[in-house]
């Protein structure tokens, strides 16, 4: 009787084992085919679907500033179910902003965030987009006489004032040792491809501040042709190495130029001889400030600008109206507060 029971038990165990095997194998196969399908479909089908398709077009393709701005825009887009495409990155080939606009219009995007330019074509394109029902937001550089719905940027005049104050501060230190008769030279690096209105406002801001302070300084704008590749680095080098006519202070209005200045001073051993006032909070710029190569940098929160662009674009799509101008705050990075920025940058990297 006991034996019979034991037999029954072992047979039950065997049957259970068989059923288990069957289950395990089906599960394994299921999970494998699932994995295979997931691999094959990649991000394509599994990816999130969005309600809106916004396109961002700008000039600086590999710029940290623009990258940060795009990140901000993208993050803001996520919140309102809109996908922001960095057209300057995603479209192959070396197209001008106007071409990209043209493409974005042809691609029937829901909204376009574009860094304006002074060309007439841009205005026309913006108008055409608006005619086709595509909402356009200009960022940093306005195309004022177009049908663009809003402009998101900084108050360039007050930016000039900040730079002016920094120049005065720097020059006042130098005044103690220098000849009073000879005016100081201040060079402002201006991107000629951009709307002159923005940079001219910066220039007048600088000029006004210097004049008010009573420091004897001559402000010149140096045009840097960004349309030509690698032009900036060459021009800055020439500027610095021209010992007779070189400026005492260089104000750089783009992060790339700031980095170039920083690098040139170190390369040609001119640290401390020329005061650099930079733009934006790139890692290299921060390092430059920390080491005293760069005196200070005006930091625009690119991320904030990006999100402001999207927020306003979405606001318009939703409500049909929006402010024509949206200003974003600026900060000044100096040796005193650079530590904090470095820490932030570090933690951002960590993320």
């Amino acid at each position, binding site marked *: 009787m006991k034996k*019979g029971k034991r*037999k*029954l038990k*072992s*047979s039950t165990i*065997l049957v259970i*084992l*068989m059923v288990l*095997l*069957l289950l395990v*194998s*089906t599960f*394994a*196969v299921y999970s*494998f*085919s699932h*994995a*295979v*399908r997931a*691999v*094959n479909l*990649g*991000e*394509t089908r599994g*990816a*999130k*679907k*969005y*309600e*809106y*398709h916004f396109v961002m077009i700008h000039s600086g393709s590999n710029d940290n500033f623009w990258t940060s701005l795009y990140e901000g825009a993208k993050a803001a887009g996520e919140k309102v179910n*809109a*996908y922001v*495409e960095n057209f300057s990155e*995603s*479209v*192959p*080939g070396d197209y001008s902003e106007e*071409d990209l606009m*043209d*493409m974005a*219009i*042809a*691609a*029937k995007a*829901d909204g376009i965030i574009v860094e304006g330019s002074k060309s007439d074509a841009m205005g026309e394109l913006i108008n055409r987009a608006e005619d086709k029902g595509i909402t356009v937001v200009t960022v940093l550089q306005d195309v004022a006489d177009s049908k663009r719905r809003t402009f998101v940027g900084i108050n360039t005049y007050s930016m000039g004032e900040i730079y002016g104050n920094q120049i005065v501060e720097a020059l006042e230190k130098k005044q103690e040792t220098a000849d009073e008769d000879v005016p100081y030279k201040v060079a402002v690096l201006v991107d000629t491809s951009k709307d002159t209105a923005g940079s001219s406002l910066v220039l007048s801001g600088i000029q006004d501040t210097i004049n008010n302070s009573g420091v004897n300084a001559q402000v010149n704008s140096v045009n840097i042709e960004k349309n030509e590749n690698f032009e900036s680095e060459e021009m800055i080098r020439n500027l610095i190495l021209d010992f007779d006519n070189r400026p005492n202070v260089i104000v750089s209005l783009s992060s790339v130029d700031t980095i170039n200045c920083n690098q040139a001073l170190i390369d040609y051993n001119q640290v401390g001889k020329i005061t650099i006032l930079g733009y934006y909070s790139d890692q290299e710029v921060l390092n430059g400030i920390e080491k005293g190569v760069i005196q200070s940098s005006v930091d625009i929160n690119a991320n904030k600008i990006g999100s402001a662009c999207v927020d306003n674009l979405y606001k318009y799509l939703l409500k049909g109206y929006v402010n024509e101008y949206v200003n974003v705050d600026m900060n000044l990075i100096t040796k005193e507060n650079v530590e904090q920025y470095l820490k932030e940058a570090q933690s951002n990297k960590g993320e």
Partner: protein
Amino acid sequence: MEKIVEKYQRMSIRYKLILSFLMACILLFLINGIVYFDLNETVGQIDSVYSSNLELNQLADGLQKVQDTLYQYLETKSSKALEQYYVYEQDYRDLCADLNSETVGSSTALLEKNISNISNTYLDKTDETIEAKRGRDVSRYKEGYAESQKLYQYLKASIDKLNTDIFQQNSEHYSSLRSTLNSVIVLAVALLCLIVSVTILWILFVTNSITKPLIELAGAANEIAKGNMDVSFPMVKTGDETTIVAKACNKMIDSIRNYIEEIKVNYEREAKHIENELVMKNDLNEAQLRFLQAQINPHFLFNTLNAGAQLAMMEGAEKTCLFIENMADFFRYNVRKMGEDATLREEIESVDNYIYILNVRFANEIGYEKRVQQKLLNVEMPSMILQPIIENAVNHGIRGMEGYGSITLDVYAEGDVVCVEVSDNGAGITDEKISQIMENRYIQKDEREAGSGMGVGLQNVISRLKRFYNREDVFTIEKNITGSGTTVRVMIPFEPMSQHIAGGNEND
């Protein structure tokens, strides 16, 4: 569950085997099928990896054709080119319809969407251009062509980019799919090995559960074949034919045991019968032998005795003549009746002669009295029964006693038995001796004693009587109530009606 198990156990061996092997086969088939499906799926996925690139190439071709035919038509305005343009345009629209048209957070999908939308814009533009050409609006169609040319360039670049991106993605997918395939193969092999071993275990278990009872049965059968009938078949509870066989075998062995028992009893009975006969013959032989030993050529003795009787007659010695005649009769009877049955009459005559002889020898010392119912005298009985009894009575009872010894012979019927009673008034007999004689344990003390009284012992007499009548109560020995003497009784069964009754009582 238990019901299923019970049902399974009741199945016949054939169905059990078929079911088990079928189960194993189905399991193997299922696992194989699953594995095959899995591999097929993976291989199919690998195959499909580059299909998207093929589709994109088709898209690029379609675009090229549209643009070419557009150019041809604008240049030649041939209806054939127009026809072709419409065909290609439709083809291209169809191809574009397959593209993703939703805003999705993946670069390739988004690029697809852009291509799709730009394509639509492009086709609208080309249609417009064609219309302008047909309407001979030169400036418009030139402008339209320029714009569509531009869009065409965008599209081409975008499709190329998409193609490259997808190719890159697919290459990555391909390598991961390859590795997946490898792991699928390893899994499949492992799974197959596992399932094969489980199946083997299962088959071993099933065959074992079926053959084990058979082996046990065979072992029991072997044991029985060797002659060990005490082995019983094991009770098998598999519920199939084995149980039936075991039950049948158990029944068979039971009945075989019964038969053997019966045969044994029969054999014993037969043997006893044969032994009986042998003993009877032996007893007779012994009696004859003893008698023969005792006689000296009886014919010569009879002739001599007859001669002696005649001589005594001639001399006028009557008593001597009678004595010798009696003696001759006694011996003649003994010799003649050797091995034959006699009648009670003949036995009594022989006893008469014997007592006469003894009385001559011992000078009328023995008183002899007989009370015989004449009608019983024809009862058949073995010979030489009464003479040894008388001899015993004389030798052990009367001889050596003081006073007058007498022997009484009574023959009477008692129910269906003829009683022949010999009683004496001699020394008597002890109870121990009686039981010894009756139980055939009495050993005579020496040859001399055995030889005395003609040598045919009482035990021989009892034995022969028992064999002759095939019953036990044929002989009794009793002490007389008076305290002296012994009575020996021989009980002869007879059927009173068939007996020939002659004459009345005769008392001597």
